[in-house]
């Protein structure tokens, strides 16, 4: 075998190997493009009364630790004062009446509640950084964590621009909102959507024109959180104030 033949054969084999890999990968791609639903959520900021029922229901449905700071969904209160200062508080119903008619020293310009949860990004930074493939995008576009495979390295918690993940204090693995995957796959609404008294949360399939979410997106001015991060969130906000981060 001379040098020319050796190079030719090696090159040929490499091409064959790579193209073979591509061919094998193709059926897998088409499986993902199946007409499965793509779930998303819409939130009417103007309807949220900050009652905290969604947070309570989420914790019960998903066995989230009862202590504060561990949330799959939470409600933030924004207060913008006349001098331009912005205050953000997180609702916590376990402490007594967090929002009672308190006398503030400064005058309030406007104030409102913003429910938050995992944005189920279409381009999720948390999935990209997971070193073991324990967090992934389901065929429905929901970002899930595999608790038996997660090594608890916290890399995804760092990577999430929305602070939607936490380390489960007992299981020592990352945990996050799953859109109540066990409910939505049975045709039920996520627990937070189910209990919201003012229907401030809308859940639905983005691919179906008849879904309440698509209607929500047709009828409202829509904004997402941190669009500059290029994460393509699937949680959409109507009437979002410019101060919300």
């Amino acid at each position: 075998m001379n040098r020319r033949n050796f190079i030719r054969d090696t090159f040929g084999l490499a091409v064959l190997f790579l193209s073979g890999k591509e061919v094998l990968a193709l059926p897998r791609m088409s499986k993902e493009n199946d007409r499965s639903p793509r779930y998303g959520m819409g939130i009417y900021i103007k309807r949220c009364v900050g009652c905290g029922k969604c947070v309570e229901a989420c914790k019960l449905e998903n066995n989230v630790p009862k202590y504060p700071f561990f949330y799959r969904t939470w409600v933030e209160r924004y207060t913008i004062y006349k001098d331009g200062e912005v205050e953000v508080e997180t609702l916590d119903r376990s402490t007594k009446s967090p929002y009672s008619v308190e006398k503030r020293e400064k005058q309030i310009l406007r104030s409102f509640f913003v429910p938050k949860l995992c944005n189920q990004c279409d381009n999720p930074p948390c999935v990209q950084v997971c070193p073991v493939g324990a967090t992934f995008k389901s065929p429905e576009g929901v970002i899930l964590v595999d608790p038996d495979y997660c090594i608890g390295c916290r890399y995804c918690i760092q990577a999430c621009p929305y602070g939607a993940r936490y380390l489960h204090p007992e299981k020592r693995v990352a945990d996050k909102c799953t859109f109540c995957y066990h409910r939505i796959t049975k045709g039920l609404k996520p627990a937070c959507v189910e209990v919201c008294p003012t229907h401030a949360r809308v859940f639905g399939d983005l691919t179906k024109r008849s879904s309440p979410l698509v209607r929500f997106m047709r009828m409202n001015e829509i904004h997402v959180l941190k669009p500059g991060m290029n994460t393509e969130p699937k949680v959409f906000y109507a009437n979002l104030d410019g101060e919300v981060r």
Partner: protein
Amino acid sequence: MVTPLKIWKKIPEQYRRLGILIIGGFLTVIFLREQFIPSDFGELGHYRTSALVNEKNKPLVYAGREKCEECHEEEVSKIENSYHKLLSCETCHGPGLKHAEGEGEIIIPRKREECLKCHEYIVSRPTGFPQVDPYLHNPPKQCTECHNPHDPTPPHPPTDCQVCHRTISSMKSISPHASLECTVCHKTPSHHKFDPRSQRPTKPTNTDVCERCHSETAKTPDYIPKIEVDSHSEGYLCWECHYPHSPEGG
């Protein structure tokens, strides 16, 4: 006859040894991959398929409103025509799947705090959402004494000014001026109710009505804020800065 053994013998020994090493390494990698990567990894994507199944099989806690409707038709038909029609049963009664399956009790909230979770006045709540100041709105009573949660329309229909001036009166009811009658500041001609456009109530034209309670010399209780009338923002009328109906008191 060319046998594989003869070909093997033809290859120089140094290449043969290298070949064995490479093949051995290759096999070790394959063996370790088989050992460490779960069999269902990568079937649908870069994850275990069983993780998806586990997630799907998690136990439910909330039943959903449709489930409640199967048994509680009476309550459902009542709530459907009330202001609480958007509510799910489990919003107030708590998770109910166990109850729907025949075991476990459902919560029946009766305390004031339960209603106040949504209906306590908070500055951040949307304008127009029905709210009360718990200290001014019939403090010793339970909400359920007057309002049926399945049909919460107040049992006493609005009277007097409230009938037409609903927004202002509900705003005033949670303001520091809640205890004042409308007629304290607005003189209302008796025919206003029948001919509201031509018989208009008066609005204060000077600040005397405010000064009656808020001037430094007024003999009113201490918790009412007082100002020195002559030096406090001279040249302006009180209501140019303070809106008297507002809960924040301006």
